[in-house]
């Protein structure tokens, strides 16, 4: 059984069909890239999976159980954590407190939550910035902190919404290493991304969306050679 099964997922905003009859699976232990041109509906898919939006039609199953209609916090507790395209730190709190709050939800004491937070922040390489307010961190560090905060909920599945956006080349490399390290730690990862080179390198499999529909699903090399994908990104060859 796949870890996550998305089937027939559809979401309308008024007359606009943002996601249309989308189906794909996420297998345990893989890194799945979800790509597509701007406005393809990628972030909407994340919001539908995590309960921030309700699907108009369709089903999302985690380990076989439908999670449609659950509130975001309940979905997090079932084992799906996420980050946001535009980072949403707790801005006035330190990096450590940000992550400790997430750990506290499933732990008994503040002390346990704090030591868990330190542990996770060390994993993402922020152990030297524990006591900095989140709003003082660079974008790259804020994204790391948000990943740490998501990891502190002990997810089975981690959804990363543009973790590489706004990062420089060096930071992109570091973030890719981090994502691979997270997967090696037993967490399945789905990421939405625009930075093609990076996503093609780290994803085991890629799902391509265009105007709310899935147009391709396969390994990175299969997908880049797909004529439909090329048409979506570069337009159709005329001559």
């Amino acid at each position, binding site marked *: 059984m796949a870890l996550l099964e998305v089937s027939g997922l559809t979401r309308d905003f008024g007359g606009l069909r943002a996601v249309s009859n989308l189906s794909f699976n996420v297998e345990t232990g893989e890194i799945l890239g979800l790509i597509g041109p701007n406005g393809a509906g990628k972030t909407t898919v994340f919001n539908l999976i995590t309960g921030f939006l309700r699907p108009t039609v369709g089903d999302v199953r985690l380990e076989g159980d439908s999670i449609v209609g659950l509130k975001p916090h309940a979905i997090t507790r079932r084992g799906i954590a996420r980050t946001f395209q535009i980072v949403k730190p707790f*801005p006035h709190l330190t990096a450590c407190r940000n992550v400790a709050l997430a750990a506290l939800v499933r732990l008994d004491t503040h002390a346990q939550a704090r030591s868990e937070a330190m542990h996770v922040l060390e994993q993402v390489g922020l152990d030297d910035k524990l006591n900095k307010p989140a709003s003082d961190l660079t974008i790259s560090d804020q994204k790391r902190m948000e990943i740490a905060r998501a990891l502190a909920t002990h997810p089975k599945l981690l959804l990363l919404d543009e973790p590489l956006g706004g990062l420089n080349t060096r930071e992109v490399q570091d973030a890719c290493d981090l994502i691979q390290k997270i997967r090696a730690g037993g967490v399945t990862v789905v990421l939405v991304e625009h930075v093609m080179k990076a996503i093609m390198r780290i994803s085991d499999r890629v799902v391509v969306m265009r105007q709310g529909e899935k147009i391709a699903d396969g390994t990175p090399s299969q997908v880049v050679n797909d004529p439909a994908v090329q048409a979506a990104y570069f337009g159709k060859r005329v001559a």
Partner: protein
Amino acid sequence: MKRALPVVAAILLLTLPLGVSNQFFLHLGITVLMWTTLGVAWNLLGGYGGQVSFGHASFFGVGAYTTMILYLSYGLAPWYGMLVGGVVGALLSLPIGFICFRLRGPYFSLATLAVAEIVRLVALNWEQLTAGPMGLLITSLPQVTLFGNAINWERKEPFFLIVALLALCTMFAATLLTRARLGSYLLAIREDEDAAESIGIDTTRAKLAALAASAFFTGVAGGFYGLYFRYVDPDAVFPISLSIEMVFIAVVGGLRTVAGPVVGAVFLTVIAELFREHFAVGHLIFYGLFMMLVIRFLPEGIWGRALRILAWRH
């Protein structure tokens, strides 16, 4: 030292009537302590949770009316009635929260204002229950003997002790609640509600819990109002100005501080006493002006700033 301070302050407060017998000063003290209770209760949701309610007068009014009706119709002594008033306030807060918490930020605040007006209009027009604009009057309080002495309800001392206990209990409960898990959840919600939800916090439940606790103490304070003034009518216990004054106390004293509302309540009472003689409702203009100055120059409130300066020195 730091732990002993609240205990010493509490003992001083409870023994104050032994040293002060001036009835006017005791009346001022009672007013300050009632407003303190309201400010601390409001702060639970508005300060710690960042959910600015402009509708807390409904819980105050419902607490006051519950206390009065239970005494006048069923003979339940007001000091017990106050507690029932708090429970009724908390119960009322749940459907109100359920409606208003669907909205965020300023929209939430406006919704609380609108719902409070509905509650006020219901109280004004449900004459069989509330006697409408006529209000309810208690002519005499029950006889109580304590340590062999009959309590003299014509003096201020017994009321001072009741409200001092109420204020202390509210502050103690606020301290416990905000240090508990709920306090952490409210902190996350105040910082970013979506992020709070995304880490697994049931934000609606946490906000409802804070609202219910806040409404409980507001309702008990409303019950005290009925007991102390022995008269309530919708204009006295349900007005918008009352909701605004609760915000004022918390903001001026210091959001997210337990002792801040004491400072806010002192300021409110002093301003009200200074201007009430000269203008009918003119003191509200001065609250407004004063609040603008505080927000501009002391956004963390008077007590909030004091705490920061003290922490900085250490």
